């Protein structure tokens, strides 16, 4: 694996506006009833008057050690050289094992294809053209940074090297590639 694409979500900059959610929907033709990406506004936390919210990005974590890939009986859930966890529609039988196995609950059945669907960093469309994923491009506050963490000069590398970050559910050993910069007020809550 030469590339190691990662995404950083800065919870200080995020305002929960869902621009990313909407951009993803239109870029990837996600049907109305389902979603690849949500930013949930959780809270309020803290004591009055010092209340704050947490902006929780919910999308595929692109686990390095992906449970969804391990359990798929046919190999329809797979990882490529680019490290991106993907789905081969033709091999999938729709057993839902991967949907059940994903600890982040981000896989869903696409009502049109009858196959599991989820964020793939826009790899077929934007990434293939050398562009950033739709959510990253559209974010009004630049809360998202995306890139190849193996590239020492990349933007993501700089962000990860200079700011404290956390990943969700690290205890499960999935090694998620979505990093989060905790809100200064919120602290780290994995």
């Amino acid at each position, binding site marked *: 694996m030469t590339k190691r694409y990662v995404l950083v979500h800065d919870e200080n900059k995020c305002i929960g506006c869902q621009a990313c959610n909407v951009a993803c929907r239109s870029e990837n033709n996600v049907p109305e009833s389902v979603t690849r990406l949500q930013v949930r506004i959780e809270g309020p936390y803290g004591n009055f008057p010092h209340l704050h919210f947490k902006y929780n990005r919910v999308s595929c974590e692109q686990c390095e050690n992906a449970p969804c890939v391990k359990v798929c*009986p046919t190999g329809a859930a797979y990882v490529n050289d680019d490290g991106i966890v993907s789905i081969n529609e033709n091999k999938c039988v729709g057993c839902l094992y991967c949907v059940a196995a994903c600890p982040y*609950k981000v896989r869903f059945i696409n009502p049109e294809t009858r196959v599991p669907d989820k964020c793939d960093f826009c790899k077929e469309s934007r990434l293939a053209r050398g562009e950033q994923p739709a959510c990253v491009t559209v974010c009004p506050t630049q809360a998202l940074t995306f890139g190849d963490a193996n590239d020492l000069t990349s933007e993501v590398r700089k962000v990860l090297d200079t700011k404290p970050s956390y990943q969700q559910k690290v205890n499960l050993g999935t090694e998620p590639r979505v990093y989060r910069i905790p809100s200064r007020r919120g602290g780290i809550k994995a």
Partner: protein
Amino acid sequence: MNNIWGSMEQYDPVVWNWIIAVYLFMAGLSAGSMLVAIGLKWYKKSRGLPTEGLPVIKAAAIVAPVSISLGMALLVLDLTKPFEFYHILLNYNLTSVMAWGVLALLVYIPLVFVFAALVFEKQVLKYAPWLAGILKVCRQLENSIHKLIFVLAIGVGAYTGFLLSALISYPILNTAILPALFLTSALSAGSAGNVLVATLFFSKEKSDCIDQVHRIEYPVAFNEALCLVLLFVGLNFSGPAAQGALGAITQGVWASVFWIGVVGLGLLVPVLSSIFAPKSWRHTKGFLITVSCSTILGVLALRHFVVYAGQSYIS
């Protein structure tokens, strides 16, 4: 609640539903019934007793193929792409428990039918005389076939547990005890299924070796209870998320299913009734039917409890 991020429906943690619970039950029933029947056969043989035409073995020859076939039918229909299920027979990802299950079933299912055909050889030959040659070969291989079925049945019974225990984020499911629990409860479902069908259709005398089947029921029930205790005691010591999952047996509808169905019908009724029921009842049809139905319902409840409560608590 209105939120600005969209529908939450797809995030329901309960992904697998009752169809999977029933499949898990059917697979267990089939495997358990084979284990009990073949075990009984070996037991009788080792004592030099005749093994032909035993009601329990005849019953197993019905229970095992029928339940595994129904289970498979349900499983395939539950796929989102049922007509493309053949992909699962062509591609094997060997890190997946399900792929191993498919491999085991691929051999197990035909062998169970061979088992049944050998038990009902006369009837089979009456309707399909062209099978005579194959059956003769199978008869010669009977001993090896039994051994193979026995091993595969253990595999089928246990793999259903491993299937769920591979789901790492559900504390109730992600334990090593689950396969053992599934295997023992498969044995109780299997023996109860065999007794039920034997009593209903095949037994002419009162005790037709139903006694021997009863003899395994105590240790099996004991093991099952032990697994359940270990499961929940283990949760209690495995951090906050797992402790939260103890709610499965203390509150809500699944707690009732657990105490009434799994513990009550599945464990207490059979054990207590065989301790306290007067001798004269023990071999009456009504008694045998009631007790085995109770056991079967208990195991069915267990599979539902595990599937639903198991998926409801996520760490």
